[in-house]
């Protein structure tokens, strides 16, 4: 098609608002497409992948004893100095932490403590709902850290959620949606 015909076609299109109609058609299509909203605290909740760096947790060994040897390497490598470890000698003669405190208000969740740990004792788990009204409550001690949920086994799913999130922390999904999860909620 020649350029003159092209221009005439464009002008005819403009006269009958072809461009505006195209835009309206697009928004109309989106209006009846699936929404991408996740109704987070009300109904649904996102489960993180196993690589996710959420709240810290301390691990136990096979005998149920804390794995931490209180070497204080995590406290040393921590870029914001939010870990405080005090060692003691337990009845078996092992070096263990008597005090292991993480100030999550200051923590930046870089995961360096996990990398530095020689005993594979500390890691960052799947929990991400630990907001609080007081920054005092964000200082987590040894026993609380032992009770925190570990890393997600499968991740990337949507599970039912309630406004009271306390009880829903440990939910695992059966249908991991994979890395391209967002493709599934876009319109067809």
């Amino acid at each position, binding site marked *: 098609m020649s350029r003159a015909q092209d221009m005439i076609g464009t002008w005819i299109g403009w006269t009958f608002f072809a461009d*505006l109609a195209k*835009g*309206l058609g*697009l*928004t*109309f299509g*989106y*209006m*009846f*497409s*699936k*929404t*991408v*909203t996740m*109704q987070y605290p*009300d109904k649904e909740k996102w489960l993180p992948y196993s690589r996710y760096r959420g709240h810290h947790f301390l691990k136990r060994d096979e005998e149920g004893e804390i794995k931490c040897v209180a070497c204080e390497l995590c406290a040393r490598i921590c870029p914001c100095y939010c870990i405080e470890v005090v060692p003691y000698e337990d009845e078996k003669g092992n070096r263990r932490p008597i005090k292991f405190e993480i100030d999550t208000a200051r923590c930046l969740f870089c995961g360096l403590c996990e990398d530095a740990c020689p005993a594979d004792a500390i890691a960052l788990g799947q929990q991400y709902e630990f907001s609080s009204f007081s920054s005092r409550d964000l200082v987590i001690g040894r026993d609380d850290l032992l009770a925190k949920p570990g890393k997600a086994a499968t991740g990337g799913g949507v599970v039912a959620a309630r406004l009271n999130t306390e009880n829903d922390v440990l939910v695992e999904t059966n249908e991991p949606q994979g890395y391209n999860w967002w493709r599934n909620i876009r*319109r067809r």
Partner: protein
Amino acid sequence: MELVVALGLIVFKVALLIAILLLLPLPLTWVERKIAGHIQQRMGPMRVGWHGLLQPVADGIKLLTKEDHIPTEADRFLFKLAPILALAPPFVVFVAIPFGESVSVLGNEITLYVSNMNVALLFVFAVIGLEVYGVIIGGWAANSKYAVLGSLRTCAQMISYEIPMGFAVIGVVMLAQSMSLLEIVRAQADVWNIVYQPIGFFVFFVAGLAEAQRIPFDLAEAEGDLGAGFHTEYSGIRFAFFMVSEYVIMLLVSVLTVILFFGGWNGVLIPLPPLLWFALKVAFFVYLFMWFRFTFPRYRYDQLMAIGWKVLLPLSMANIIITGIAFS
């Protein structure tokens, strides 16, 4: 005795009309937010009530309990007067609007309009023009630069768009040989005016968009550059007045479009009750307004004026001439 009954009927109709018009913006805000959400692949309000149906009630309670703030530098009397001046004209206009012929209740024929004026169209345009006073007084009284700029823009826009709007309906009046809205609808019993007056409809609807301050012509309250235009300084219930007025005008433009160009309560193909046909058509145009809002960007101010004076006005005049030649 008959006079008392007739008077009582009119009072009842007016009260009903006011109640409907005051309450209708509530579901309309919900609908608008839902449409906005779904066009943007969101859900809109979901938390208050079933699918957020009670959201407008919550918003209303919020607006009623908010602090009614008046700036220290404001002109207190005019500041309080402006919302009422903006709210009253759109309500008054509905006195002249027919919603149908008549219904029989308990054996009595009750007309579905408050008054059948023979100059209804003129009345509508005269009264709707008064709404601009509320806007300019509101903007001026607040003593804020954003409000003044917004009200100046609104005034210029409303005045320039009322002219093509007025010219656009002349074609309709020529076809119906009457200015009574009832006669205009009756004249469209066979063929709707949109068939004879496509240009008139286009000009009227675009000017109506500008008149109702809706996107793409919502320069008066362009959030990006003016805060909120003339009601920047308003809060609480006074702000709600402006919002209600805006929604009633949107409704009014839809109703006028239906009456003037889309056959009013005359149905086509499917035999539905006339009032339902009317409501369906109005609902479609209200939806169109909201659909436009979340599709198109805002025009620049000089473009707005150019469209009004250089496109719509010549088009509407040409429409009068064409109608005159074709139907003389």
